[in-house]
């Protein structure tokens, strides 16, 4: 039992944080809101690819780093801290391992392009009607029931559906999209289920980073803003709001890291672990948003101030790869409803 990241994993996280602070400051997130633009920055994506992040899970034979989810989770968390607009979760954590798992000949071609930063790929799994980034994605993996297709979004109708977060672009796909069959039959469902869990874990990690960023913003603000002749952060009501936000975040973290570990090792209860992670990471981000806004006062409610960029990303993500309620319910289904015994609470975590 060793519940800790390696020095190397932590160093990669620190480097990623520093890099994102440079290439994805809040002003860049704001730029991504511009409805007249794609909201995506190919140069930034290239930097992430060159750093090995986009292809982290891709086999070395295909040019990637051949790492596992546990190596990526902290980097996704950093993407959350930066509210990165590009589809890192969708491409690096969902599409790349899914393509690789299909073993289809075209997959290799696309994996190479993902690794080099020349392609982004997003997904519509299990009939999910909304797809992220269909306006820029080079391909979309569309799975419904027993079919899994690699679809060129330019060859099917995609309609933008504006969301609360101007930087998160979501689209509906026209019915019966056509594309290249990736894998037929039963495997499609199994692979898609696993990919869905990867996506949900990615969202959970993003939420951790978003929560941390919102807490940081509040701490910085209340430490300098003065009322009644003292920093508002010295008032106990303010302290307790932020202590609650930190509590929710710190107790959500280990659930997310454990889920990443379970996915890395294909543990039997990986899906349950992912849902546990999502339940608490979504909640932590929700609490951080509320508490941070409250502690900011009206400045936090202004569009010019950055807080809402992070709040809104968190809200938008709460329904990606399953909603918070879906994941809470899935915990109940496995641990409470089933006739089969739930996982042993005293067993291996």
């Amino acid at each position, binding site marked *: 039992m060793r*519940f800790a990241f390696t020095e190397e994993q932590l160093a990669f996280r620190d480097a990623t944080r520093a890099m994102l602070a440079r290439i994805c400051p809040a002003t860049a997130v704001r730029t991504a809101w511009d409805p007249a633009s794609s909201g995506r920055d190919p140069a930034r994506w290239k930097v992430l690819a060159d750093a090995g992040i986009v292809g982290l899970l891709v086999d070395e034979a295909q040019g990637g780093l051949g790492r596992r989810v546990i190596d990526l989770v902290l980097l996704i968390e950093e993407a959350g801290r930066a509210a990165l607009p590009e589809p890192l979760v969708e491409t690096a954590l969902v599409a790349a391992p899914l393509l690789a798992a299909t073993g289809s000949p075209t997959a290799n071609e696309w994996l190479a392009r993902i690794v080099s930063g020349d392609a982004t790929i997003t997904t519509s799994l299990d009939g999910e009607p909304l797809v992220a980034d269909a306006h820029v994605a080079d391909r979309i993996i569309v799975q419904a029931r027993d079919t899994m297709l690699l679809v060129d979004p330019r060859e099917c109708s995609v309609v933008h559906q504006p969301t609360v977060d101007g930087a998160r672009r979501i689209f509906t796909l026209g019915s019966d999209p056509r594309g290249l069959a990736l894998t037929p039959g039963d495997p499609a469902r199994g692979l898609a289920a696993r990919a869905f869990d990867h996506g949900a874990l990615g969202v959970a990690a993003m939420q951790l980073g978003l929560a941390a960023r919102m807490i940081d913003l509040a*701490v910085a603000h209340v430490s300098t803003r003065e009322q009644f002749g003292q920093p508002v952060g010295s008032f106990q009501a303010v302290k307790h709001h*932020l202590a609650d936000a930190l509590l929710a975040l710190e107790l959500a973290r280990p659930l997310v890291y*454990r889920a990443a570990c379970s996915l890395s090792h294909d543990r039997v209860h990986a899906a349950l672990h992912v849902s546990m992670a999502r339940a608490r990471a979504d909640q932590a981000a929700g609490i951080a948003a509320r508490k941070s806004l409250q502690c900011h006062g009206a400045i936090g409610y202004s569009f010019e101030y950055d807080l809402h960029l992070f709040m809104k990303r968190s809200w938008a993500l709460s329904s990606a790869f399953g909603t918070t309620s879906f994941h809470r319910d899935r*915990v109940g289904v496995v641990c*409470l409803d089933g006739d089969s015994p739930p996982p042993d609470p005293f067993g*291996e*975590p």
Partner: protein
Amino acid sequence: MDLTFTEEERAFRREARLWLEANVPPGPHPSGDTADGFDFCRRWERELFDARWAVVSWPERYGGRGASLVEWLIFEEEYYRAGAPQRVSQNGIFLLAPTLFELGTEEQKERILPAMAAARALWAQGWSEPGAGSDLAALRSRAVRDEARGGWLLTGQKTWCTRAAFCDHLFGLFRTGTGKEHARHKGLTYFFVDLRAPGVTVRPVGRLDGDAGFADVVLEDVFVPDGDVLGRVHEGWSVAMSTTSSERGLSLRSPGRFLATAERLVALYRRERERGAGVACRERVVDALLDAEAYRLHTFQTVSKMAEAGAKMGAESSLNKIFWSEMDLAMHETALALLGPSAPLVEGPDGAWMKGFEFALAGPIYAGTNEIQRNIVAERLLGLPRK
């Protein structure tokens, strides 16, 4: 990151499970906060000691097994899984002992630890006073030098001392400094007091749940020899702080306790659902499971960090304290909601929930109230201004 248990850890769990299954007396057990229950629990503590399960993480020469922190957590899990009796040795083995290991003299360790482990000497904690609760540094009980006898004369009143009515010894803070330079935190010293020494009066005080549990300890010129000072004179505050992080954090309430409560809650939910009731509580039961799981994992994370960096638990222990106490309360509230009309019953198969609820209500108060913990989290972990 490796979340599987090693072969040794598994073997350790198996051994603990087998022993507990064979030896835990059938429940329900009497409360250790009553006179009879205390005796029952003391006898049980001796059985634990004889089988070397009393203090698994201590070195062998003091009665332990030199177990790792992870193994200690495993033992705790098995202990609660088996539904074993309440640990009346808790204040000694979990709160005083870590401080003794760190700051005690060899003589003190040899004299105190084995007797504590064997439940020959059970300990109470004497910090709070009528005028000093959250503001512990306001305490006024004092110790005056007795040069002739080589020790101190203690006078004052300690209050809310858990199980002090039945315990043998008390550890506590007393004011030794009187000058200006010794105000508040500065002039305190950490003492061991024999509760049967002349000048000590112990008055039981009933608790909300009806148990005798608490005691007021009144001291009048109680002689304590120099050998019963822990750490340096006037430096009791920092000695005591090393105990508080054990109390708030890891040792007082390890995850096993809540895993067991969550498991009982799930069983109750399933039972009530079969009767047609209880579905409305499903979300709350899900939260109980999430809480117990999060706390368990968070603790494994903490001990991994401690094992690696040799780090001590600091202000992070305040996060733990808020979390476990509020989780415990929420679980019991959920159980009572599930029980419906039989929630108020305090006897019979479900009566433990109301008793447990009453005790859980104290969690946000003792070991430093949760308001104080939130202050600590905000100031020490988030760095918010004190004033």
